[in-house]
């Protein structure tokens, strides 16, 4: 069923080309997936001018909301928003159901893994993972040994990165268990699309995301120390100059809780207090958006001015709960990532529902040899970096870059892993005067409180540059709203 055109300058998505890539909205050139048809038909009724006008309107709404960053080196105080594309990405109810199960399984297993690693280390004794791999990791935090977080949960908030390969399967790229950012974009992007494409919400059953604040608050309340019936829950931010400050303020606002900086808090006798206009007030739960290493200068980085001296002591005593628990980064190490299927099998006795991308660990002599011989085909990543930093994309790299990475890998093999270059899926994106396919990834956000909840939506990042596979905002990527569709059978 093709949309009817009324003659004037519509975009005619009939001419949209998938170029052989898996596409999130099209099954073939000019043919929309059945579930995406109502959206495509609607876009087709809009003239080019109208679509551009709506794109401008969306950008203006985001600009006025103040989620902006300063243009580096600009003295006039010019501010910009992250690029935003108004054409949403869609996830079918079926795909979502599988993702949801896959995420819950991973997070359950990874929590058991972190608890085990910092306590009994059974998985090491059983030789499922080589001990050297754990103890050589920069993310293994000795001060966390013996920690038992409230209710046994370490990773209260996580954002699993997925990509879809040419076969249409979703693969996990990263688990992001250290308080990932980006959820504010999910909520803001949705608010924008409800304003500029309201009609689509009438024809499609799109699952809402606006109750995230409620879920987050419940997750945090769940871990409050016993006996604190009306717990004082706060968000802890590094401060106004942090690039995610908008998000920290946004989340505090969504939950109606104070947003504190390190200097607002003080620890006395292993109890955390905040400085209020009426004196010191005890703090019970902290959703901290400060990295582990800056959290407590008495324990981690001594020079950190962002953190709260003594907070780890209060945490160990059970007088305050932290989300996420410190130490979760061990499960984010990209070399450990390679073992996640085994971790799932070991703790849950199940096969992984969501697949890993095959990963070569450079620390392993045989695997390193393969990596070095195939640098032009593989993606090489530093195990402890994210955001698209410390990365080599083989097929798009120069000889010199490959040589440089060969040197880096040989010097510090533990620091690198490699993966085959995936054929990332694409989604239609407004580019100039037309609509073209651009590569995307997908990060849904999960909360682990009384149970595991994954918000039916997420952040779709899009590589605006033609052919680029790097979606990170630090590398010029933008974002899209993500529509998870409700199951027709369930809702009707």
């Amino acid at each position: 069923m093709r949309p009817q055109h009324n003659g004037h300058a519509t975009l005619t998505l009939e001419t949209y080309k998938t170029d052989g890539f898996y596409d999130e909205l099209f099954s073939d050139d000019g043919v929309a997936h059945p579930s995406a048809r109502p959206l495509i038909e609607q876009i087709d009724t809009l003239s080019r001018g109208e679509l551009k006008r709506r794109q401008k309107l969306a950008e203006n709404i985001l600009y006025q909301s103040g989620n902006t960053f300063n243009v580096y080196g600009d003295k006039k105080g010019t501010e910009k928003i992250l690029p935003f594309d108004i054409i949403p990405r869609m996830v079918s109810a079926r795909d979502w159901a599988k993702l949801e199960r896959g995420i819950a399984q991973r997070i359950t297993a990874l929590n058991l893994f972190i608890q085990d690693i910092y306590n009994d280390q059974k998985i090491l004794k059983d030789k499922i993972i080589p001990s050297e791999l754990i103890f050589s990791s920069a993310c293994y935090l000795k001060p966390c040994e013996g920690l038992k977080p409230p209710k046994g949960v370490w990773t209260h908030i996580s954002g699993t990165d997925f990509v879809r390969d040419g076969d249409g399967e979703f693969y996990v790229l990263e688990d992001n268990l250290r308080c990932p950012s980006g959820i504010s974009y999910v909520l803001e992007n949705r608010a924008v699309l409800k304003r500029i494409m309201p009609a689509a919400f009438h024809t499609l059953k799109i699952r809402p995301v606006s109750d995230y604040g409620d879920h987050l608050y419940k997750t945090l309340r769940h871990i409050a120390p016993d006996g604190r019936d009306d717990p004082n829950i706060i968000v802890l931010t590094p401060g106004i100059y942090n690039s995610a400050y908008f998000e920290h303020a946004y989340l505090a606002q969504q939950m109606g809780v104070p947003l504190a900086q390190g200097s607002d808090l003080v620890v006395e006798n292993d109890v955390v207090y905040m400085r209020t206009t009426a004196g010191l007030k005890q703090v019970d739960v902290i959703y901290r958006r400060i990295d582990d290493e800056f959290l407590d200068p008495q324990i981690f980085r001594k020079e950190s001015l962002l953190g709260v001296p003594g907070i780890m002591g209060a945490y160990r005593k059970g007088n305050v709960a932290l989300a996420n628990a410190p130490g979760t980064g061990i499960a984010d190490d990209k070399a450990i990532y390679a073992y996640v299927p085994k971790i799932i099998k070991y703790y849950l006795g199940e096969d992984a529902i969501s697949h890993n991308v095959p990963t070569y660990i450079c620390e392993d002599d045989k695997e390193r040899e393969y990596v070095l011989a195939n640098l032009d085909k593989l993606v090489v990543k530093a195990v402890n970096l994210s955001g698209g930093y410390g990365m080599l994309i083989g097929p798009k790299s120069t000889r010199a870059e490959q040589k440089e990475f060969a040197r880096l890998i040989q010097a510090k093999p533990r620091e690198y892993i490699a993966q085959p270059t995936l054929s990332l899926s694409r989604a239609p994106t407004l580019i100039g005067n037309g609509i073209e396919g651009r590569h995307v990834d997908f990060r849904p956000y999960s909360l682990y409180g009384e149970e595991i909840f994954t918000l039916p939506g997420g952040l779709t990042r899009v590589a605006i540059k033609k052919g680029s596979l790097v979606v990170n905002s630090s590398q010029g990527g933008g974002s899209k709203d993500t529509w998870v569709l409700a199951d027709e059978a369930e809702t009707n």
Partner: protein
Amino acid sequence: MLSRVANSIYWMARYLERADCVARFIDVNTHLMLDLALDQYSAQWYPLVATSGDDEDFTRRYKQADERAVVRFMTFDQSNPNSILQCIFRARENARTVREVIPVEMWEKINELYHLTQSQSRKRSVADLADYYKEVRQSGHLFTGLMHNTMSRDMGWQFAHLGQMLERADKTARLLDVKYFLLLPHNDVWKDSAYDAVQWGAVLKSVNALEMYRQQFHTTNYKDVTEFLLFSRAFPRSVQFCLEDAAAALETLTGDKAKLSMASREMTTLCKTLHSSDTSHIISAGLHEFIDIFQANLNLVDEAIYETYFKL
């Protein structure tokens, strides 16, 4: 409420009120100069700088106090901490640190005003600015409206209200003082009551007080305007009115603590400064001298608020 947050809300409101008042100051002078039919060479802009209290900074950096220089200094000068641009910048920085406690629309209003100011500051012509000043004043009204209509009357509101009222009391007093600094070439023009009426009419207009004033006093003269702007219990921009509101906010913040806070004590002293005088007495002893003392006491209140609520 976090001390830092209370401090930021207080200053957010103060800076916005200050930007609003500076726009009013420039407005009053523009009208005054036009009404007095002074040519651009004898037009007086320096009194505005003197009234603002930033005269030292101005004379150090500007050669002459003509319209262009003064307007530039008070509107878009990056180095003048009390220029409209700087006030709005600081209001926004403060608002940014308290976004979680103020309604979204309030933040968006401040943000919008900031972006408008940024784009206007690139314009060079003074004549083009009338619309901008109007926008600043309108934003002030919108901001106050949002504050009153969308914020719970909890601590955040009380601190914002306190900041706004203290700033307004300060600026209304300074506005009254403008005559002290006006040194016109022909001193005798001030004996002419027609000019007196013109001058005070412009002052009243700049604080949106002309109509309300006339309903009470019908004709404009020095003594009645001073009476109205200092002591009116009914007009919401008079010094008396602002102080009563500020004192009430402080009382709510103090709660039922038996011991009076330092802030409340200083506030009481400030109110006494005002109550112990009347207009005739103030005029005979010198309005300028009175306002000097008043402002010194106002600064003490500000310091005491810091000590009582923000210092921890």
